[in-house]
């Protein structure tokens, strides 16, 4: 069985389990009107964040048989209803894994007050974190997954799946056979951490991209840029940067670079310059261009779904910064490759020109017209959908289905084009990150970071932007962003003024811009290097870092200025 088939089967299993979990009918909560007395309140952690899923049981005095039980909701609120209240003191027992249990006595006077008013709201209950063996187990697994991905010891999907499996192994078998303290998270709770909006949006976009890429539009645009520049290599480099930035914003930078690199190499060779003077700027622009839309980078899709940031929000709040960053990047590129621009000359014979033109022709104009029509409607759907509460995955799924019906491509080919590896990676990663959220590692990091930046929003923005940017130079930005999201959520809730979501935008910019730092900073960099290694102009680690690292910090700086201006 091939690895891709194994992954597909695993995906289907996870999907099936998730649907099963989603369809399990919830236990019907008793209608409060059936009861005469209700007792309620809210449970939160020491930082004031609501705690979901805390078990609250009401006992009569020291009795061990509870009168009623309930669980706190996502906003931390809870409510217990009784048809009658016994005489004497009552006791409330609150428990949740990874928190210290708490008993609260409800004195007779309060019970009397409750009885006379019918309902009573208690003061907020604060549960303290408890560092258990499960905390350390989850932390080790989480760090292990990050390290395996960073050092490429395992395929990132395998690393994340192994991490998720270990979490369950420790939670179920470790806690049952070795120590209950090893418990991390249960299966149902773990599934709740999988963001299906992200999965479905990524899947739908992959189908649309697969159809568009076959049309040859990228190659055609690159060739038109070559014609338009009339041998002026510096102008061509700037146009190609702009093209890849826009294409990356609308599709994704990985696919964009797969399609742009071969034709750009040919154009570079045709011009008689080092093709890397065209290609490296393209990769840099593709990593930054994607920042300005929701679908431009996988990290933006993650951030958008997590923080409820829509398509127009990304456009409104990040496009200006992206344009500023691209301008600075363009200037740096022109300076860095200044010797190459003079070498350019139009030396192609008519036969070679014709061959180049043939390699850059639009393969299927009709399919392209249809694909662009649907794609434009999907973009409109993203904007309109925000007004009717439709998440971006909805127009994307409709668009993908419409293309499949209208163009009737080979469905097997289309299903193969869906990158199941990435989807499984996302799902497994959500579980691993969810596990460290459950045990409190993320809140520990968030509290530490919060103490460091205090209530200073510009400092917090700087820390998130440059911290994420620097880490992205070495660590794949998807797991990094997924891990950072709960931290940014915490900071957003605790720093005055951060509810503008500026820290999420800082995360988006940092994760993408940091990818330019080294050859291993982004997958688009790696595939581009792989393609150039097939020619006599390979991108070496050193060659890339000489331009990538300065561009990373220049663009991070520009991005920071933009966020300060915009917010």
């Amino acid at each position: 069985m091939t690895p891709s088939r194994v992954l597909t089967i695993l995906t289907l299993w996870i999907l099936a389990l998730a649907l099963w979990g989603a369809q399990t009918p919830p236990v019907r909560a008793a209608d409060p009107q059936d009861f005469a007395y209700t007792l309620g309140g809210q449970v939160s952690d020491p930082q004031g964040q609501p705690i979901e899923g805390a078990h609250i049981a009401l006992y009569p005095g020291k009795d061990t048989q509870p009168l009623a039980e309930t669980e706190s909701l996502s906003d931390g609120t809870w409510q217990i209803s009784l048809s009658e209240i016994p005489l004497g003191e009552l006791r409330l027992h609150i428990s949740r894994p990874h928190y210290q249990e708490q008993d609260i006595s409800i004195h007779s006077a309060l019970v009397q007050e409750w009885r006379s008013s019918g309902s009573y709201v208690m003061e907020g209950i604060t549960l303290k974190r408890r560092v258990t063996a499960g905390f350390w187990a989850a932390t080790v697994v989480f760090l292990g997954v990050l390290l395996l991905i960073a050092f490429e010891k395992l395929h990132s999907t395998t690393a994340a799946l192994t991490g998720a499996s270990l979490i369950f192994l420790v939670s179920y078998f470790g806690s049952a056979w070795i120590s209950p303290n090893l418990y991390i998270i249960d299966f149902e709770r773990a599934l709740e951490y999988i963001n299906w909006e992200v999965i479905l949006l990524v899947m739908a976009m992959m189908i649309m991209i697969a159809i568009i890429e076959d049309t040859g539009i990228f190659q055609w645009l690159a060739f038109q840029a070559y014609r338009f520049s009339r041998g002026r290599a510096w102008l061509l480099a700037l146009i190609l940067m702009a093209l890849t930035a826009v294409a990356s914003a609308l599709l994704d930078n990985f696919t964009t670079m797969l399609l742009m690199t071969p034709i750009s190499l040919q154009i570079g060779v045709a011009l008689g310059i080092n093709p890397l003077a065209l290609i490296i700027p393209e990769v840099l622009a593709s990593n930054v261009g994607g920042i300005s839309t929701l679908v431009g980078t996988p990290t933006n899709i993650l951030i958008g779904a997590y923080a409820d940031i829509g398509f127009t929000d990304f456009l409104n709040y990040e496009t200006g910064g992206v344009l500023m960053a691209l301008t600075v990047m363009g200037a740096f590129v022109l300076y860095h490759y200044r010797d190459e621009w003079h070498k350019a000359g139009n030396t192609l014979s008519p036969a070679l020109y014709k061959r180049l033109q043939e390699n850059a022709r639009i393969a299927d104009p009709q399919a392209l017209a249809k694909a662009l029509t649907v794609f434009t409607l999907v973009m409109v759907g993203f904007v309109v959908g925000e007004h009717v509460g439709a998440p971006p995955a909805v127009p994307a799924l409709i668009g993908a289905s419409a293309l499949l019906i209208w163009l009737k491509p080979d469905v097997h080919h289309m299903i193969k084009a869906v990158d199941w590896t990435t989807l499984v990676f996302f799902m497994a990663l959500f579980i691993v990150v969810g596990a460290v959220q459950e045990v409190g590692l993320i809140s520990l990091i968030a509290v530490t970071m919060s103490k460091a930046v205090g209530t200073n929003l510009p400092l917090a923005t700087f820390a998130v932007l440059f911290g994420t940017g620097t880490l992205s130079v070495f660590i794949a930005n998807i797991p990094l962003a997924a891990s950072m999201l709960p931290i940014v959520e915490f900071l957003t809730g605790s720093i005055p003024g951060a509810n503008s979501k500026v820290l999420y935008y800082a995360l988006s910019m940092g994760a993408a811009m940091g990818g330019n730092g080294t050859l291993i900073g982004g997958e688009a960099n790696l595939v581009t290097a792989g393609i150039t290694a097939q020619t006599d102009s390979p991108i070496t680690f050193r060659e890339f870092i000489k331009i990538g690292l300065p561009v990373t910090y220049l663009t991070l700086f520009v991005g920071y200025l933009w966020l300060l201006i915009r917010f």
Partner: protein
Amino acid sequence: MPTILYPTRGGRSSYPNQERVFALARERQADLLLLYVTNVEFLGLVARAKVVDLEEQLDNMGEFLLAMAQERAEQAGVRAETLVRRGEFRQVLGEVVAEYAVDTVVLGAPSEKTGLTTLDFMRTLCAELSAETGVPFLLVQDGEIVETFIPSPPEQADD
């Protein structure tokens, strides 16, 4: 007419080695077979599955780079054919040598400044391939022949 096989990756930095091969072909009155080998194994480095038909794109790129080399060869008075193949370079080279009855293979070592491989590696490769295929290999770098690898004649069985 003898055939010289010259695998090339095209591009400006290949020009000195190309010139040397053209001169050699003229000297020997040989035809040139220009070979470009594409290999997408590097996609295994990335987490993302292969979505684009990259092999076709690389084939197009190879054909274009070889067409440029072919044009240069013809301008130098050498007749050249082009061939784009997919796969692992070493294996493909062996197959092409056998398939096209090649007389000599010229491998160009990239310049020390730009290359991803070392001259020592290229020497070892030439020696091994020459022994495997029974065809002489010439190693050129920066337009100069660095070393010639003549395969040992097969040992005669004692009567």
